[in-house]
């Protein structure tokens, strides 16, 4: 029976010839991931259930990224717990301050995840690695604990929506505008329980950073996973990076999809999600009356090198508007270092922005940019729920790095110009 790309990966990891949508399976895991918020809960469950050994010390990744360098004593205790667990179980992929990055930027960069993998992570944005041609999905801490103990997880095999990409993005747009447009089209539960499989001629025009950003936010449409086919861009990205051999899967030509959505990349415009749902999208050009107090450029969605480059190209030689706080957060230490080497950091500081070491901090209202009542932020992050970045009466507008940086200069939501 014909299978989607996701179904093929799941079938292989379940040791089965075939699977079909709706089937419940138990699959072998290549990587089990957790962070400093979700891992402590998983450790509690792991210990409470009486497990003493992890299934494979090389297949577990623990990344301290949400509240590090630790924002307070309680957060420090949580990190300490992760550190001690990682040390006592000799976890190979443990990332602490100085080495860490935001997990979903870090794991692909460091070659911890690769094409063909079956991955669970106790973080909803684990779906990011679909960009590499992996099946990757977010779970909770108990699933993480079970995964660490057994190397297995149960799944209901998802059906899929096919997203057929054609055309090519204009210079003032990026992967962020694509995924925001798509979420605006299908809604925050438009892909609930399902895969979003990207395909078509347009795929080859998207960089790996664009694909990672697109897959990252498929969860904001309710999807179980997002996935891209493996092509030369993927192979080039994985080369000399990945420790394990990538495995390439392709969807059967006659695979069945619940629906097919056509996206012409040439028609995408700079897009902003207004409060308080990611589906509440509007062209950035229609929002120029909205005054902002803060700009955040970073996160697992948009803290990668191309995002920093986009921000640099807008901010170099310019000044952040008076009354606007602009916070830039490279997502990993490698990106942080590269920003210094390329002179981006100097340009950001000269423009009046601040540059932080990697952290999820402001995206989830943890620290490093919390909003007061009535304040507005344009952010390259992924959620704009009530109170997401601070006070319940504050507002978050989601946008691309180019749109966010352009807005930082004007002090109002501003679409980047074509060719800028």
């Amino acid at each position, binding site marked *: 029976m014909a299978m989607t790309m996701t179904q093929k990966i799941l079938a292989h990891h379940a040791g089965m010839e075939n699977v079909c949508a709706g089937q*419940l399976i138990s699959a072998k895991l290549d990587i089990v991931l957790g962070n400093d*918020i*979700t891992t*402590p*809960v998983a450790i*509690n*469950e792991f210990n*409470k*259930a*009486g497990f003493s050994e992890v299934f494979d010390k090389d297949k577990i990744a623990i990344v301290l990224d*949400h*509240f590090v360098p630790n*924002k*307070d004593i*309680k*957060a420090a*205790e*949580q990190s300490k717990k992760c550190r001690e667990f990682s040390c006592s179980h000799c976890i190979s992929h443990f990332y602490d301050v100085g080495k860490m990055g935001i997990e979903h930027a870090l794991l692909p960069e460091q070659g911890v995840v690769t094409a063909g993998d079956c991955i669970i*992570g*106790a*973080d*909803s944005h*684990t779906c990011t690695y679909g960009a590499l041609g992996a099946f990757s999905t*977010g*779970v*909770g*801490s*108990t*699933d993480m*604990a*079970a995964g660490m*103990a*057994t190397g297995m997880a*149960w799944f209901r095999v998802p059906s899929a929506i096919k997203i057929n990409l054609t055309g090519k993005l204009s210079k003032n747009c990026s992967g962020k505008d694509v995924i925001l447009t798509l979420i605006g089209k299908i809604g*925050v*539960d438009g892909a*609930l*329980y399902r895969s979003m499989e990207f395909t078509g001629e347009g795929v080859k025009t998207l960089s790996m950073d664009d694909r990672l950003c697109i897959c990252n936010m498929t*969860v904001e449409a*309710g999807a*179980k996973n997002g996935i891209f086919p493996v092509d030369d861009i993927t192979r080039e990205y994985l080369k000399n990076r990945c420790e394990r051999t990538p495995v390439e899967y392709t969807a059967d030509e006659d695979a069945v999809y619940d629906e097919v959505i056509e996206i012409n990349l040439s028609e995408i415009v700079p897009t902003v999600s207004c409060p308080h*749902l990611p589906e509440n999208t509007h062209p950035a050009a229609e929002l120029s009356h909205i005054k902002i107090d803060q700009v955040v450029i970073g996160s697992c969605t948009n803290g990668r090198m191309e995002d920093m480059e986009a921000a640099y190209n807008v901010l170099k030689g310019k000044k952040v508007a008076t009354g606007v706080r602009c916070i830039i957060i490279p997502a990993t230490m490698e990106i942080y270092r590269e920003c210094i080497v390329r002179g981006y950091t100097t340009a950001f500081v000269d423009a009046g922005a601040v540059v932080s070491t990697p952290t999820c901090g402001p995206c*989830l*209202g*943890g620290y490093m940019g*919390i909003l007061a009542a009535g304040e507005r932020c344009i952010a390259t992050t992924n*959620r704009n*729920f*009530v*109170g*997401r970045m601070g006070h*319940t009466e504050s507002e978050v507008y989601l946008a691309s790095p180019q749109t966010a940086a352009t807005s930082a200069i004007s002090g109002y939501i501003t679409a980047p110009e074509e060719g800028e």
Partner: protein
Amino acid sequence: MQTKGKVFKYPDNVDTDVIIPARYLNTSDAAELSKHCMEDIDAEFVNKLSSGDVIVAGWNFGCGSSREHAPLVIKTSGVGCVIAKSFARIFYRNAINIGLPILECEQAAEEICAGDEVSVDFDTGVITNITTNKTYQAQPFPEFIQNIIKSGGLLASLK
């Protein structure tokens, strides 16, 4: 497994950030976390709640972050069951894994009002609105999932 209590009603797309805001996630202590259950959507929730009460909501309940703290605070604060038109997938999974009773039932979620007295039989999926004297049949779980629940959660089912 049964519960009986009054209804707290919420709209579509209740996200895990309003169920348990991230500013409190610097601890994994369930009792401490549950003091802030539903704080950003209903600041009075924990003061008004009695053990066994029921949350009724619209589509996509529990969307957003994968934080298991969300179903955990709902369970720890004494909620007997969550009824929704649909659940976001990670929340759905987490609720099963930690043993928070949840039921999908579009009609019940549509018709039951805030403050109604309801009883829920989690094993049969029968929801009874005592206030209006109307019953609803929720979707039963697949057997595979029922076994996880009967074992007392995912980790217990692995033993």
